[in-house]
């Protein structure tokens, strides 16, 4: 299976400041990738480059196409939600469905209507009458009815309450995702997406600092609850992060064997959020 996205030496400069600094990565088909980084790390810039919204340097292929010169063809197979609540205020639910059905060859109207029927949206409702959560429901209904090969979600649930957020990811996973589709998500609410991700990509200062499948992450990173008497022994193994919970040290190790660590104390898999915090230490310092 060839890569859905492949980047070689991808760079984007704003003035002298490099937003993306010569990165390489490949995203194979059928994955759900979490692209995670602090504010201003280059996540959105990377996605914009892939969607052909901005010029860039280096090589970037999305489904074999160059987003700079072949954007019109690319958008047949790619869909994105770039931000929450960006539907035009005058748009009616019914008109939105008619419009996308009219111009998108891969749009399945009955799917969109079925999804809308499960919400409080009404056909005559205008976007300006909707809450932020309802706007996202409408947007998701439109996007999920498009049989795109790649779906890009840039902070799709920002500013929504937990009910909408949970429902959003549940719908995505149950009704949309299959082995022929690829989803890329950026979000700050890491803990809400970590259980649906298959791959993880950490980005910091325009560089990719971690790119691995969730399985690999589970093997590489181990968190250990170290009792006070074994702290010195544990420190000798060079933990990448350390914090104290209820008087016990919780240490995070990268690439140390689990057997060796279980001698030091209780081991477990770290959450993506903890891993993120450990990896991004000192970003804003």
């Amino acid at each position, binding site marked *: 299976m060839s890569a859905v996205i492949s980047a070689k030496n991808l760079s984007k400069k704003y003035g002298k400041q490099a937003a993306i600094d010569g990165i390489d990565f490949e995203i194979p088909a059928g994955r759900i990738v979490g692209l995670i980084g602090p504010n201003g790390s280059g996540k959105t810039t990377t996605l*914009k480059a892939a*969607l052909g*919204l*901005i*010029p860039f340097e280096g090589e970037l292929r999305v489904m074999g196409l160059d987003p700079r010169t072949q*954007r*019109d063809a690319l*958008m*047949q197979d790619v*869909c*994105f*939600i*770039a*931000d929450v609540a*960006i*539907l*035009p*205020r*005058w*748009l*009616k639910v019914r*008109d939105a469905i*008619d*419009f*996308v059905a*009219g*111009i*998108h*060859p891969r749009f399945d109207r009955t799917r969109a209507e079925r999804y809308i029927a499960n919400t409080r949206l009404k056909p005559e409702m205008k976007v300006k009458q909707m809450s932020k959560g309802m706007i996202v429901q409408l*947007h998701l209904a439109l*996007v999920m009815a498009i049989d795109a090969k790649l779906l890009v979600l840039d902070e799709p649930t920002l500013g929504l309450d937990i009910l909408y957020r949970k429902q959003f990811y549940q719908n995505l996973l149950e009704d949309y995702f299959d082995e022929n589709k690829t989803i890329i998500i950026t979000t700050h609410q890491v803990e809400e997406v970590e259980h649906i991700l298959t791959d993880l990509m950490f980005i910091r200062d325009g560089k990719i600092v971690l790119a691995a499948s969730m399985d690999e992450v589970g093997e590489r990173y181990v968190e250990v609850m170290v009792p006070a008497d074994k702290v010195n022994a544990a420190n000798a193994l060079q933990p990448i992060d350390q914090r104290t919970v209820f008087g016990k040290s919780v240490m995070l190790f990268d690439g140390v064997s689990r057997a060796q660590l279980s001698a030091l104390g209780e081991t477990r898999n770290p959450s993506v959020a903890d891993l993120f915090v450990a990896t991004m230490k000192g970003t804003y310092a």
Partner: protein
Amino acid sequence: MNTMKWLLRREFWEHKGGFVWAPLIAAAIMVVLVAGVVGYGVSTDKFGGDSVTIRVEGKEVHRTQMATLATGHSRAQMAEVAANNYIAAGAPIFIVLPVVAFFYCLAALYDDRRDRSILFWKSLPVSDTATVFSKLLTALVLAPAITIGIASAAAFLILLLAGIAASAQGVNLFAPVLSNINLYLSPVYLLAMIPVYVLWALPTAGWLLLVSSWARSKVFLWAVGVPLIVAVLLKWMDYMLALYGATIHADWIINNVVEVLLNGLIPGTWFIDGGTTLPINGGQGVNMLSLLGASWGSLARPDLWAGVAGGVAMIAAAIRLRRWRDEG
């Protein structure tokens, strides 16, 4: 082709107010006003009886009825003029068109950048060229066609009201007017002028779309302010240079460039600004067919094609900006 149909429908959903309701309301006001005057006149018998009075120094010397004045030949002439020129009664509605089209073009590529919904439109398989083209088509073809439809209907209603007023004076012109072929051809002649209008309006539409896709804010200020400031600067330079007996022909530039950028959306500019003269012949008023002929004749003017070239270049620039502008 199907995509274009939906893009145009999209524009219509968003701008129904400006393109349909505004001319419709203007038309309704006109018809109601005329109907009120005619209704009042007929009901109070102001039109009837001895309606033509000739006074000399306040003393009445002659008093007669309209009906006795308007006899055979002059009736036929009145009917001819009415059937040929009734459409002019719809003229006030055409004032609405350039105003609406001006602000539409300014907002066309700016509003969706301001509210960021451009990111939604750009997530769909529609090229930026098609998007910009749909806006151009809406402003220069659809909007004038709708205006012509509404203005013709309003003018026809006013003609009928005038006919009622005339019959109240005993001059029944319904038969000769309604049987005059020009009555029905006048709206068609107007529609046939749209291609000429498109070409003359292209520089203004191009300029406004360019500002609309370029400016980060204050589109109106940019679109109007830049040409005006340039005009003032040119005038000032000319004034200074005049001291040394030189000139940069500021007036010529202002007339031919600045005005073309701002006034092109006004229908019939090709008659206003020299070159093409309005064909008026005494007895019959303006003949619509010769008006159409003169309009198409303006296609021979080189200043038109210079404007078209400029307009096309600005539209191409607007498309390019739309494609690459980073909307953050």
